[in-house]
């Protein structure tokens, strides 16, 4: 029974009593469940587990606090519309925005922030963390922290580009299918069905065997494999628009298909497409990281989060968690994008049920 354990339980019990007294039902339930779980975990795993739980909740609370401060300061800083939007944003969305902004800053100003170059050998391989290399060295003695920062640029940048290409292909094909109809629609639809009948990761592996691994090939292959889903959405939402009277009016005016697509249909489907862009970005990002992790994506010496995990994975069996930081960076960005997309879907109500 350490002092920590006593303080831990005392805090939980006081907090649950306070929640019960002020009739915060959900807070009470949460705290009480946590209390029971902690009792069980403490009995089984000792106070080490309790420390982990406390650290976890401390991190959550810190994230909540930062997001709250970020949201409120945004409300103050942003003019008119922006402030109104931010005021109604849930904390999760504020957190997501904050994370995305941090990543963008890291990516854009990577050479300024990173203390060392992307492929610069600084110390011994697997050097432990010290004042010079705050996260230690990797398998060749390069600075982990600098590579992490450059990774934001490479991994996120490539994923962004891939999503943009996939989106261009998918949206244009979807809009053409919806506006042209007839055999064009049929042919495109069948091609997409076939592409979707093969699991994407497996298909990507097959295509990468053939074209070889390089960043350009990776981008094009992933973009091709992820465009069918975008095609389906674009075609479905555009299908609802092309039957409208104003489209018919445009046709009767003698407008070309291209004009109808660009000026009449596209502006009306931007909201669902923007949300879809966020979601697809997550999938593309995870797919590229997975391929890089397998050694078939972004190639060394380019700093990339997926391959960083793979290169330093041996450290994990010694109980070191530094190789997991790039993987955590991937997960954090995906969660953040998901939070923002949820919020966007909510406010645009373009896809709201």
């Amino acid at each position, binding site marked *: 029974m350490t002092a920590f354990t006593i303080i831990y339980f005392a805090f939980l019990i006081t907090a649950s009593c306070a929640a019960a007294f002020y009739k915060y039902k959900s807070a009470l*339930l949460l705290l009480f469940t946590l209390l029971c779980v902690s009792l069980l975990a403490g009995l089984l795993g000792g106070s080490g587990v309790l420390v982990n739980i406390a650290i976890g909740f401390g991190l959550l609370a810190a994230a909540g606090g930062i997001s709250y401060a970020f949201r409120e300061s945004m409300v103050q800083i942003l003019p008119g519309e922006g402030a109104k939007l931010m005021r109604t944003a849930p904390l999760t969305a504020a957190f997501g925005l904050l994370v995305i902004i941090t990543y963008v800053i890291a990516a854009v100003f990577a050479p300024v922030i990173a203390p060392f170059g992307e492929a610069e050998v600084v110390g011994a391989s697997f050097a432990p963390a010290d004042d010079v290399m705050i996260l230690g060295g990797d398998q060749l003695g390069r600075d982990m922290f600098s590579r992490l920062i450059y990774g934001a640029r490479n991994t996120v940048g490539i994923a962004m580009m891939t999503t943009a290409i996939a989106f261009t292909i998918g949206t244009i094909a979807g809009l053409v299918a919806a506006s042209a109809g007839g055999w064009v629609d049929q042919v495109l639809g069948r091609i997409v069905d076939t592409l979707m*009948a093969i699991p994407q990761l*497996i298909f990507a592996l097959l295509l990468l*065997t*053939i074209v070889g691994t390089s960043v350009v090939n990776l981008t094009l292959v992933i973009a091709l494999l992820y465009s069918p889903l975008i095609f389906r959405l674009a075609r479905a939402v555009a299908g609802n628009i092309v039957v409208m009277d104003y489209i018919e009016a445009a046709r009767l005016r003698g407008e070309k298909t291209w004009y109808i697509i660009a000026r009449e249909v596209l502006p009306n489907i931007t909201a669902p497409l923007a949300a879809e862009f966020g979601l697809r970005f997550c999938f593309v990002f995870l797919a590229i990281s997975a391929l890089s992790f397998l*050694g078939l994506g972004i190639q060394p010496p380019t700093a990339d989060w997926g391959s960083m995990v793979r290169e330093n994975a041996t450290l994990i*069996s010694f109980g070191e968690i530094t190789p997991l930081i790039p993987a955590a960076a991937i997960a954090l960005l*995906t969660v953040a994008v998901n939070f923002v997309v949820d919020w966007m879907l909510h406010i645009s109500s373009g896809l709201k049920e």
Partner: protein
Amino acid sequence: MQGVIALVGKRLLLGLGTLLVVSIIIFGAVELLPGDLAQQILGQSATEETVANLREELGLNDPSYIRYFQWLGGAVQGDFGISLANKRSVAEQLAPRFANTLFLAGYAALIAVPLAIILGVLAALLRNSVFDRVSNALSLVSISSPEFFLGYILIVLLAVQNPVFPAISNVNPDMGLWERLNRTTLPALTMALVVTAYMMRMTRAAIINLLASPYIEMARLKGVPNGRVITRHALPNALAPIINVVALNLAYLITGVVLVEVVFVYPGVGQLLVDSVTKRDFPVVQACCLIFAATFILFNLLADVGAILSNPRLRHPK
């Protein structure tokens, strides 16, 4: 009953057709390779004679459609040709690994399916409660994390810090079931984490959708108690969407196995596929892709058939 069999038969034929098209793509993709396959394998320094010999050996002198039918004919009989890397029969290497992969996927499914259905139904019934929000957040995190992240976290927690399970799941055929289960627990848990999250969210959405339907409202309006509405009206009808969700996620499980196998150095098809891609061993890659694609199509087909069997309305398409 006659109608159902005809409908299911039509689905099966459609699935077979898809598989045929997929096999053409898998075979054709390698054909599209620029230049000569034999030259690619031997490298630039090869003499004309050795290239010609290899072409003869691989049967590259026949037109491609004849080779496609030879390949397909062999594949349906379980003969996938010879590996380029080690000259061994592909089928021989593949068979024990496929059994291992199925074992791992089955183990993961055994953990994931009951857990996901119970959690999903609970989250739908208790929606907007603390339980729903917490499970929603946790499943979002688990979906957003790359599989290798979850796998390594489990290794750190359950193999390094508290040595409960081994970190590397090297199984071999003469291992007892218990030993085998012990070694595959961590990879199975990793896959179960991801699949449970997906399945739970889909189950929750399906049940919420169901609870919004008019007949549930009717039951509530005529004064049926809440518990009875759920057990007698909602759950029997929830079977159809749940079967669909399970089958779709099992399809995902089979293909999601690749990353997990690499993390845990598990001797399965996924590991073989990744190795062969690095070595550019085309026959093995083609065989692995065909097996994965066939399983994927099979489970999607099962989802379709399950939906038809459990929902009478689908038996009479308008």
